[in-house]
């Protein structure tokens, strides 16, 4: 998650461009060993067990290691060993940006220091973040996301990043901005959440991204914004919002949602307090609108 948040910070400050960040993340990812690979190499798990855990991750908001321990495939101690192995093979985002020539070391140091100051992080917190693989990171960034967005939206965006990673792209980058002007989109998929909290959520994008999004999520050969494409992007939003509702329910807040709607060439007038989360995917860019 650190990569997503720090990447977002660098983008918003104009220190790097989205394509540079995507490039660095791809490079970073290529250098990072996956826990499943480590587990198989160590003889702790079979490939079938790894596949089973990957499938479980699609609907459980949990990490690979956590689920593998729960299923009894590995012990806590084996998980620690695996994480240590992963850390050795892991390249930090900052290092990746430097290696790929998108930032100098001096620029990176300055950005990291400004980031730390801006978000009021203690040195201890920042050291945790620097290791980039601690369970504490998510909580720290959740806290800072809350400062920026408020708890509700922060939880929503954190889950969105996870679901984008699970279902449609390994390296999504999000830019969070205030909704400042009307938004017109070729394709607009929306869903309302209601109950103790009311939210309007929508995915807005152009035709090309809509089709690619649909094909990725459905894992089907979709080349036109036809009925199947509309069902696919709609189902992603429905699935994401459904998991959000389950998380809220587990925290004692029961919410409901309306069926999703797909519209073409819609303009959404600036509704006042709202956010636009621009999601940079490896295959294109779309906006998630939160009102």
């Amino acid at each position: 998650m650190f990569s997503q948040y720090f990447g977002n910070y660098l983008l918003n400050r104009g220190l790097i461009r989205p394509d540079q960040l995507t490039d660095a993340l791809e490079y970073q990812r290529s250098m990072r060993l996956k826990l499943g690979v480590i587990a198989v190499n160590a003889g702790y798990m079979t490939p079938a067990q790894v596949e089973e855990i990957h499938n479980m991750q699609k609907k459980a908001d949990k990490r690979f290691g956590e689920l593998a321990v729960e299923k009894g495939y590995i012990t806590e101690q084996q998980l620690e060993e695996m994480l240590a192995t992963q850390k050795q093979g892991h390249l930090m985002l900052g290092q990746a940006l430097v290696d790929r020539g998108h930032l100098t070391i001096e620029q990176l140091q300055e950005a990291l220091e400004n980031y730390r100051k801006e978000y009021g992080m203690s040195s201890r917190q920042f050291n945790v973040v620097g290791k980039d693989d601690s369970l504490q990171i998510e909580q720290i960034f959740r806290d800072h996301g809350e400062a920026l967005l408020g708890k509700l939206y922060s939880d929503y965006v954190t889950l969105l990043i996870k679901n984008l990673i699970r279902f449609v792209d390994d390296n999504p980058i999000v830019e969070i901005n205030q909704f400042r002007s009307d938004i017109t989109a070729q394709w607009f998929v929306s869903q309302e959440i209601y109950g103790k909290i009311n939210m309007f959520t929508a995915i807005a994008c152009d035709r090309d991204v809509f089709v690619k999004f649909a094909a990725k999520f459905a894992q089907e050969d979709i080349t036109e914004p036809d009925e199947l494409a509309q069902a696919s992007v709609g189902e992603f939003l429905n699935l994401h919002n459904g998991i959000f509702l389950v998380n809220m329910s587990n925290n004692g807040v029961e919410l409901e949602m309306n069926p999703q709607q797909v519209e073409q060439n819609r303009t959404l007038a600036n509704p006042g307090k709202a956010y636009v989360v621009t999601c940079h995917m490896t295959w294109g860019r779309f906006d998630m609108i939160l009102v």
Partner: protein
Amino acid sequence: MSSNRPTILICDDSLLVRKKMKDCLKEYGDFNIVEASTGQSSIELFKQYEPDLVFLDIVMPDKNGIEALKEMMAVKKDVKVIMLSSSGTKSHLKAAMDAGAHDFIQKPWEKSQIEHIIRNIF
């Protein structure tokens, strides 16, 4: 349609979900498959076809899946209805089970879950 094949009713407003479910069911048997995309049409098709098994979404246009489930149970009390929803909240789980659902599957489902249900019921 052949009368000796079991009939399965898939109720979901998403064409994608219905397609994936049909593709999956084909792997596990020879079924008459009927599709509904709204809560109201689910009930109408349920009465018309008297299916042996129903996969029922919760968030649907017209009428939600919990209401549809209650109406189905009133028509045929021993029908096996599997709720299939992305919003497996505590209140939805309780409402579905109270209304007589046979099982509740949180989306996204796995083929093995569908296979397990098919093997148990048929």
